[in-house]
């Protein structure tokens, strides 16, 4: 089973990197951009076959280490290989 974890800055936190990329895209002629946010993707390959245990484990990992709840939101998907 593979977990794909998406971590991004909360909406209330300014993302200067996203803003810079937005400007760059606009200078390339892409005019229809409302907002650009940049985040991280973490892929974890699990030995576990049980979806429920995996979900609990990944959620714990996010809370403990992978995301900082003060500034970041996360969500994840579990996929069969």
């Amino acid at each position, binding site marked *: 089973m593979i977990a794909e974890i998406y971590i991004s800055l909360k909406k209330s936190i*300014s993302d*200067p*990197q996203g803003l810079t990329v937005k400007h760059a895209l606009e200078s390339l002629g892409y005019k229809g951009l409302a907002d650009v946010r940049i985040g991280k993707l973490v892929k974890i390959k699990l030995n576990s076959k049980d979806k429920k245990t995996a979900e609990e484990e990944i959620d714990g990992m996010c809370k403990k*280490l*992978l995301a*900082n709840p*003060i*500034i970041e939101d996360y969500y994840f998907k579990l996929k069969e290989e």
Partner: protein
Amino acid sequence: MKFAVVVFPGSNCDQDCFYIIKDVLKRPVKYIWHKDTALDGVDCVVLPGGFSYGDYLRTGAIARFSPVMNAITGFAKKGGSIIGICNGFQILLEAGLLPGVMLRNRGLHFICKPVYIKADNNQTRFTNLYNIGQVLKIPIAHNEGNYYIDAKGLKELKDNHQVVFRYCSAAGDVNDRYNPNGAVDNIAGITNKKGNILGMMPHPERSSEIKLGSTDGYFIFKSIIDWLENKKTC
């Protein structure tokens, strides 16, 4: 009194701190490796600057789980004195020993230059040799020094006089124009509520000798020495 400088993989200001304490302030100091689990009779712990664990994931996020951090948390709870400088500050934030978090500098640049900071509070063990409002010239060198805390947290910091240093002009004007990284309220350094832990982005160890252009940082180390040595003899 005895200092310890904690060394994480990727710390790079550890030797500067060690040198200033040993050769300039003439106090005993030892290194503590991040895998050590005891502090052994130390009075003040310095978490130095650098790039612990390559700044992977988030600055300080991995270092906070180093084995030594359990001992440091215990030391903090007992009121032990801790100074986190730059990456050390980031580690203390990730560990929850200080409130708030660091974001990337608003200009997205790594900034390495001398800045001016104002001492907002001289009633701490780390700043008792400064005057209130004294302007200090101390260098910064960081990519993630954009201190963030929500409005409620900021109010608490202010109400408890935990904001110790703020970025300012040479004349002491605290204004967003003199804010190098976008930090909330120009914050450059804070303490915890109890006042035994200081985190600051500027590097006092790089401004503790006249030949380095400023001795303003020296008085942080000297303050803590005076405070601890006087307390012990009282």
